[in-house]
């Protein structure tokens, strides 16, 4: 049996996210993009209605929403502003390693507070000289009695400097490569930790991105997730899941590109008729619709696999690569529909293209997604 119907709860979650985005995100998206500012009031409002940190388990006071629920929320936020969505999404990314590998005590200590206020988590894996090659981490974790001493630099960390805690991946024994890594929760106020907000991003400029410097930062061994040697495995299992919300956000961008293009094509006239009456424009709209429907189906399918405990790495990689590639194509076609106006930031479509470019890159570039997919094909 197969069915595509959302549950009543899911329809309500979707409706809530849609109204929230319409009233709270869309009106401020362009301003935060232009000014490269953090939308604190949006994050506070999202917390107030329960849309922030939705994956925190019920056992520690959260809602414990599923990946499909998260995909529904992600599409709505992506529709409004992919940059603002990345703040929420990156917080769920910081939570995921704890869902996979933390003890109940660790979940209470770190995840419990995340539902009490507009607080964020973050995931610190990338380094200045190391991105896709996650096994080659240069950040060091030295075990010293009942403490771990962390030194090194992380970069491209969404929410990094704002988050209550970062899950930091480091190597305690470089010779062991992947098996010499650990995942450690580092709270914001640990001495020796400093952060720097990066400026000059092409898109997603509402989302704060940081580089982080660890200068012999000491945390108790009780902050380590799983066992010594589990770091790489935890990072990969996390990304196998969190690529689904990246895809969902891209589906939202795609839907926005189609909506804006349809509206404009019905208004703009040329040669005595609306441009929607020309097949050249109709084909663009049709291609966007094809991409929207198929990207959403693949995203929901990957989410369903993850929620039902089935293998989902390949499906998530397909969803992430396909949704973000086709959303980028749709956004740039939307600019073509708008012509010269599409190139101006007075209209919303150029931002869609700048924003969704990042969905092709973060949480594993789309080249890495294809490596993952090919590995499954050749298995």
């Amino acid at each position, binding site marked *: 049996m197969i069915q595509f119907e959302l549950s*009543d709860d899911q329809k309500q979650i979707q409706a809530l996210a849609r109204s929230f985005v319409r009233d709270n995100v869309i009106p401020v998206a362009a301003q935060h993009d232009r000014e490269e500012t953090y939308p604190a009031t949006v994050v506070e409002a999202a917390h107030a209605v329960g849309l922030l940190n939705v994956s925190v388990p019920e056992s520690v006071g959260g809602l414990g929403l599923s990946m499909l629920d998260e995909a529904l929320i992600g599409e709505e936020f992506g529709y409004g502003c992919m940059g603002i969505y990345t703040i929420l999404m990156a917080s769920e990314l910081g939570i995921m390693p704890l869902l996979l590998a933390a003890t109940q005590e660790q979940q209470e200590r770190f995840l419990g507070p995340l539902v009490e206020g507009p607080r964020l988590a973050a995931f610190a894996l990338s380094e200045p000289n190391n991105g896709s090659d996650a096994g080659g981490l240069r950040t060091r974790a030295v075990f010293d009695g009942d403490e771990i001493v962390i030194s090194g630099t992380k970069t491209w960390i969404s929410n990094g400097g704002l988050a209550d805690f970062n899950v930091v991946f480091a190597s305690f024994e470089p010779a062991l490569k992947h098996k010499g890594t650990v995942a450690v929760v580092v709270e914001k106020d640990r001495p020796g930790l400093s952060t720097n907000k990066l400026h000059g991003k092409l898109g997603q400029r509402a989302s704060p991105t940081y580089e982080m410097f660890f200068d012999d930062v000491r945390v108790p061994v009780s902050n380590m997730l799983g066992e010594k040697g589990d770091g790489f495995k935890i990072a990969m299992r996390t990304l196998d899941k969190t690529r689904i919300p990246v895809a969902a956000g891209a589906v939202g961008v795609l839907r926005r590109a189609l909506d804006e293009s349809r509206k404009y094509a019905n208004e703009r006239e040329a040669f005595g008729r609306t441009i929607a009456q020309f097949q050249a424009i109709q084909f663009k709209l049709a291609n966007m619709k094809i991409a929207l429907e198929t990207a959403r189906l693949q995203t929901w399918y990957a989410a369903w696999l993850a929620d039902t405990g089935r293998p989902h790495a390949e499906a998530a990689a397909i969803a992430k690569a396909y949704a973000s590639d086709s959303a980028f194509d749709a956004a740039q076609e939307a600019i073509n529909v708008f012509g010269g106006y599409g190139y101006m930031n007075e209209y919303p479509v150029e931002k869609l293209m700048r924003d969704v470019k990042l969905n092709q890159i973060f949480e594993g570039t789309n080249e890495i997604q294809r490596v993952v997919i090919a590995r499954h094909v050749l298995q």
Partner: protein
Amino acid sequence: MKLITVLKQVPDAEARIRAGAAGVDLDGVTFVIDGMDEYGVEEAIRLREAGNEVEIVALALGPARYEEAIRTALALGADRAVHIETDVDLDPISQARVLAQVVQQEGADMVLVGGKQADWDSAALGPALAEVLGWPHSDWTTKLELAAGSVTVEHDTDDGHESLSMPLPAVITTQQGLNEPRYPTLPNIMKAKRKELAKRALDEFGAGAGLTQITSQQIQTRERLGKVIEGDAASAAAELVRLLQSEAKVL
């Protein structure tokens, strides 16, 4: 005290509605809780938040799909719900006769219902309910204050607005301006699942086929006259003014 909020589920204002030979085709249409009724749910919650001891019961008469709108009311803050499930289309007076029985069985002190129902654009349900119950009624209410055993309201009239005071129980119809409805929060959406939603059947209430029958349905479309005024600018303008005055009667 007990407050009953009567609600409907109606097509989303942005939905495209088609009519065919068999009537209005609602296939593929998104439905939402009627915005006018939402003001009533919100007002009931605000009365509780103002410190009044109230139980809020959401009451709806309609097809199975209404359950979504009822769940929204529960997520917003209603304590429990009664759903009289039926696919029969009843006119507002017949609806009022059914709903009034539940209101009486519940022993409610106040009924809040939208000033107008967005599905058939009827403003009759609230007044009809007051008539069947024999209760005082305020329509198009924009302000509401509870006192011991009575309620003071402001409501719109053709010329402005007036203040009324009436004993409870009473029927209040709600509209824009009364309040700003909130979002149901995610935690409350999840909690709403565990709230009681009692299902009742229409035949428990002795309702017949209703007082009116729908014989045909059409979607109103704007028809263009396609009239072109000939002549020079001055005489064409004079003719246009004459047509606007005597035929279109808009001047």
